[in-house]
């Protein structure tokens, strides 16, 4: 009997299937597989290590681009965080200033407006602050620090900014007194700006005794500034017999380099 090629192939496949079913059912396949695993183990190990090393190498190359992108993202994030950090620091500073002001009871005495210094012109003895007519600022409003030290008064008002004329400005002149034990012992005088952050106490009667380190504060005379604001301390007394008045150099109570946050007294 001669079989056709198609039948032959079919028969081979059926026989193969039968053989494999028997092979797998008897569990002999496990032994066969174990044998091959055993003899192949050294070659497999070599291939595995080589593949691992090579894939690591290619992975590093492909990761570089990813790392670069991540690096750029992190840089941007870092910048954003730095900006936020700076903003928070500023807020903290502002908060501390307000706390200090609250502690010395400034808000009880005056109606204040917090402002920040935006520019300094030492040669002209002026400052620029970030509050203007929009915030209710008017000309001649006094400007102080949170320690109640007098800075000056508003010279010019813009919509969003104002120019502060420091008390050391040459055009500045106001009544002041040297603090004594009580009101009767107070020595009255006039503080004049000499320019370049210099102050001079003038028109002090000759018979009055003033000494270094005495504190100079404002008086209510003239109505320019509220009374009791610290102007500075006597640095050097200038007394001459031929002159009717004695004078003194004053060291301002504020350090212009440190000025960042100021208060504008809008009502006193």
């Amino acid at each position, binding site marked *: 009997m001669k079989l056709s090629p198609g039948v032959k192939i079919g028969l081979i*496949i059926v026989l*193969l*299937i039968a053989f*494999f079913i028997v092979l797998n059912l008897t569990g002999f396949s496990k032994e066969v597989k174990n044998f091959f695993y055993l003899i192949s183990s050294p*070659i*497999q190990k070599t*291939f595995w290590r*080589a*593949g691992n090393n090579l894939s690591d190498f*290619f992975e590093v190359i492909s990761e570089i681009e990813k790392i670069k992108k991540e690096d750029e993202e992190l840089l941007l994030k870092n910048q954003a965080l730095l900006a936020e950090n700076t903003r928070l620091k500023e807020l903290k500073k502002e908060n501390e200033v307000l706390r200090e002001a609250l502690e010395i009871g400034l808000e009880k005495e005056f109606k204040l407006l917090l402002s920040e210094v935006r520019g300094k012109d030492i040669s002209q003895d002026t400052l620029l602050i970030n509050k203007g007519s929009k915030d209710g600022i008017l000309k001649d409003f006094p400007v102080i620090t949170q320690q109640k030290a007098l800075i000056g008064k508003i010279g010019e008002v813009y919509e969003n900014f104002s120019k502060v004329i420091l008390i050391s400005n040459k055009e500045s002149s106001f009544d002041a007194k040297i603090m004594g034990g009580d009101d009767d012992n107070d020595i009255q005088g006039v503080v004049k700006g000499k320019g370049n952050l210099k102050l001079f106490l003038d028109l002090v009667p000759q018979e009055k005794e003033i000494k270094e380190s005495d504190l100079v504060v404002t008086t209510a005379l003239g109505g320019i500034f509220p009374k009791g604001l610290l102007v500075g301390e006597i640095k050097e007394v200038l007394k001459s017999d031929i002159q009717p008045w004695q004078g003194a150099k004053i060291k301002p109570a504020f350090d212009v380099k440190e000025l960042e946050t100021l208060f504008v007294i809008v009502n006193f």
Partner: protein
Amino acid sequence: MKKILILIPFFYILTLFQTSFLTHFNIFLEGGFLGWALNLILIAVILITVFDPNTKIGVGAAFTGGFFLDIFSENFIGFHILILVILVFFIKFILRKYVRIPIIKPA
């Protein structure tokens, strides 16, 4: 017969290479290349059958390659053998019935 004997170490090394070396590269894993894993044994069996369709070497390649694939895979022995043997017969059938390869006659 000699050719089939050469196929045994060839497919043995190729299977080890595929299962131990190429598994580290995504293109040879499931879903690596257009959703399919590249199978070197399959490619080798197809190429052998296509270039030598008139001998039994294709079936021998399918049997040997399939056997080693089954040994080094989780499937039962016979799974890949059957698939590859059927594939070889199918390729032979297609080539015999529908494909005519032009032969350049010597002058």
